[in-house]
């Protein structure tokens, strides 16, 4: 583990990512980092002046993993010297966590902690929908998706406005995005009366309808079992249709696809423009959403001071690295192909050969490289924007505040 931190962990890119600028600012120096040590020991409220100190401390404590918290009004490690009540979180990335366990009621391939390539399709669908929704509806651009190392995925949003959101605003965005009720037996409640889906969900539905056919009907075959079809029937609001389908399906086993077709045939038995038909079509849309729409772990997002595992940490159970994921290629991502810490150290030994000299950024010589480069590109876009903004709002101010910043920009010219 220590070798991993000393030689592989990309401290500098992580620092840039948290700091939004090349030289340490409040975003980094007043940021809480919490260490998880073996035996469920947690050291909270750590903070560092610069990236070297950060790395030194990580190597000294050699934690199993560490988590990122909010930016506070003063340095977290000095919090005891702050006046009572004046040590408060003021900023933090807007984070989301999607966990496979929330999908247990609708997946048939694995359960609880297990994950396979097949259930990853749920996550892939969720990423697609969330990524589009947040970019389109909320206008945020700096989204970093990170595989959590086992069965979930995290999203970190670093836009200025997103960083500054209050807890109340975070709660609002979560409720806006969250659609599937916690209680499995409840139906979706997203419409006002019998009206059409709100625009935000209509957009998601177009994509999810495709996912539904492939994933729910064909791959997972959710409705084949008796339990599965009972769950489906519970979501249909028309008793006549439910009775008809029940008798139809009682005779023998039919696949999910056939059952879904039966349901659609039943809908068509009502006249066009009849209220029953409209109601059932709405129910059908709701069912598609219920089975495929992203399921968020709300509590992670709602509070500014929630801690979340840092990217590139090692998952303690699987040994896999929490690597960034490109949302454009989310469907091709294979969680089982993510490098593990043992694999990386092995690669390093092989590359070292006989000389055995340790380098700082040894990740370049391992299969971790593409992932770190992904983060660096993300950082570059973010830092470009910050720089542009500072120039725009007054060269005077930014020049006096961080001369090195402009200097280095000139150099790169």
């Amino acid at each position, binding site marked *: 583990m220590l070798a991993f931190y000393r030689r592989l962990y990309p401290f500098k890119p992580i620092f840039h990512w948290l700091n939004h600028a090349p030289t340490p600012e409040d975003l980094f120096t007043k940021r809480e980092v919490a260490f998880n040590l073996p035996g469920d020991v947690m050291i909270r409220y750590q903070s560092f002046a610069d990236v070297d100190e950060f790395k030194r401390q990580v190597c000294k404590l050699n934690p199993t993993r560490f988590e990122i918290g909010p930016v506070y009004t003063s340095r977290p490690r000095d919090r005891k010297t702050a006046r009572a009540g004046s040590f408060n979180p003021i900023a933090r990335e807007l984070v989301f966590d999607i966990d496979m366990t929330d999908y247990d009621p609708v997946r048939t391939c694995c359960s609880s902690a297990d994950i396979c390539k097949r259930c990853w399709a749920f996550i892939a669908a969720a990423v697609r929908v969330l990524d589009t929704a947040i970019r*389109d*509806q909320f*206008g945020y651009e700096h989204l970093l998706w990170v595989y959590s190392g086992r069965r979930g995925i995290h999203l970190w949003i670093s836009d200025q*406005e997103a960083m500054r959101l209050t807890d109340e605003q975070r709660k609002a965005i979560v*409720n*806006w995005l969250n659609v599937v009720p916690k209680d499995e037996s409840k139906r979706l409640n997203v419409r006002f009366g019998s*009206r059409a*889906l709100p625009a*935000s969900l209509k957009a998601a539905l177009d994509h999810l309808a495709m996912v539904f056919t492939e994933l729910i009907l064909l791959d997972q075959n959710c409705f084949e079992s008796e339990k599965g079809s009972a769950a489906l029937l519970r979501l249909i609001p028309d008793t006549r249709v439910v009775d008809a389908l029940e008798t139809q399906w009682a005779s023998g086993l039919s696949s999910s696809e056939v059952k879904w077709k039966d349901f659609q045939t039943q809908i068509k038995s009502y006249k066009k423009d009849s209220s029953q038909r409209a109601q059932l079509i709405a129910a059908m849309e709701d069912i598609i959403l219920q089975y495929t729409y992203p399921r968020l772990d709300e509590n992670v997002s709602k509070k500014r001071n929630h801690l979340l595992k840092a990217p590139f940490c090692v998952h303690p159970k699987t040994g896999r690295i929490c690597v960034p994921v490109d949302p454009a290629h989310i469907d091709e991502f294979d969680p089982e192909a993510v490098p593990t810490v043992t694999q990386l150290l092995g690669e390093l030994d092989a590359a070292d050969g006989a000389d055995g000299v340790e380098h700082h950024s040894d990740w370049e010589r391992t299969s971790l490289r593409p992932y770190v480069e992904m983060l660096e590109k993300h950082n570059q876009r973010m830092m470009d924007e910050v720089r542009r903004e500072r120039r725009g709002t007054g060269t005077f101010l930014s020049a006096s505040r961080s001369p090195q910043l402009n200097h280095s920009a000139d150099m790169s010219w």
Partner: protein
Amino acid sequence: MFKIEARSTVFESSDKIQVELHKDVKHPHRLSFYDKPPLYDVSIEEFETSALNRLRILAEIESSAARNRTWEETKTVTTTQCEKYLPLKSSSALGVDRESQRRADHLGHFVLRLAFCRSEELRRRFVKAETTLFKIRYETDDSTERELFLSSRDFNWIAVDKVEKEKYKQGLLSYHSRVDSFEAERYYKVRWTRVPDLVDKRKIFLKGGWAYVPSREQSSIVYQEFETHLERDLLATARYMPRLDEDTRLKGILDNLSQGFLAGVSSEWSSTSTDLNGQSITADMVDDLAAKHFPMCMRNSHQKLRADHRLNHFGRLQYGLFLKVLGLSVEEAIRFWRTSFDRITDDTFNKMYKYNIRHSYGLEGKRANYPAHSCQQILTSGGDPGCPFRHFSAENLRSALVSMYGLKSEDLNEVMSTVKANHFHVACTRVFEIKHASSGVKKGDGTGGGESVTHPNQYAAKSMELAKAQEEKAAAMVVGP
């Protein structure tokens, strides 16, 4: 450099405003965002009364929330209370001193800011109650005057033009209730962060971080603005508080005010209520009155006194003053206490207790007319005897409620859960309501007009009033045809 210049102009202009303030109409609108602090001389008395009156309203709003009143109920109760303690008439109202009403409103708000900026908890509660008050006033405000108020401030919303509206027509329509009224609907664009409540309920169209707010939801922007504005100002005030704490004249008042949220503000109960009932009370009547009309704290003291034939110093003080205000004359009080302490000799009684009784009636020592203790004093006292709702253990309270008031289990559970949430006066008020259900008191009525119990004497007086009214009614029935 630029910054400093900018600041100095601000200072200059604020100086100007201060001078002009005395010439101009100070409060052109009934609604206010309380932008400018009161920059005039205020007497200590005005300082305190304006704040106390406002606190009454805010406390009532808080207890409305604790008692799960609906929005309409809260609105009615608050409006009635406002009428009584903090009238604020519209600009068109005739024959009222609008300016002084608005001045009191303005001043009270700022004094309470001082009292409630001190802790996170107080700030949160104050902002919540003030925002509710603002909402109620906003809703009840005259519509033309509200328009005037809205245009007097820059809310930084961008009106959505025809082209843009047409562009997002499908999206906007999916949040719109009726297709036919869509053409006439006006939309305003703000960053979504300014209307989190609308986002939370998925009520508006969002695009690129902009919320398209229809005019019927416009108030959301206003409320949110009021809230953020107040939150920010309170934090700023909190930073200056240490300096103010040196002012000894104000510190006591402010401390007292910030406690007011705990039990609500009670009226001074220092005069006797005998005139109210047209009869004085004698020592022999106390037993009967205690069973029928006393709030739990006083019944507890009475029972203790009867059971132990003694009562500790604070118990005697608290109970004695309560009886005094209830209408027990000093002679009767001496007789009452003498018979209660039936295990001591006349001599000890005269030496140890008589002086104190006469003292509390203002007949000895500094001859002050001591008021009876309010709920706030009892709640914040050490707890012996204290307020049963706060100081009893859950089991004791449960059995006491059954034995004293004969509460049924569903009522009991309701009261206990209120106590658990630390809403002691709400629990007491609920007991009053249950106890007087036969006199037609319904849930939420409180001691009349939705008022909560804030003083033991208020409880007793209202209870006796109700009993008398019922007696008269019964008498009228007998006499009547």
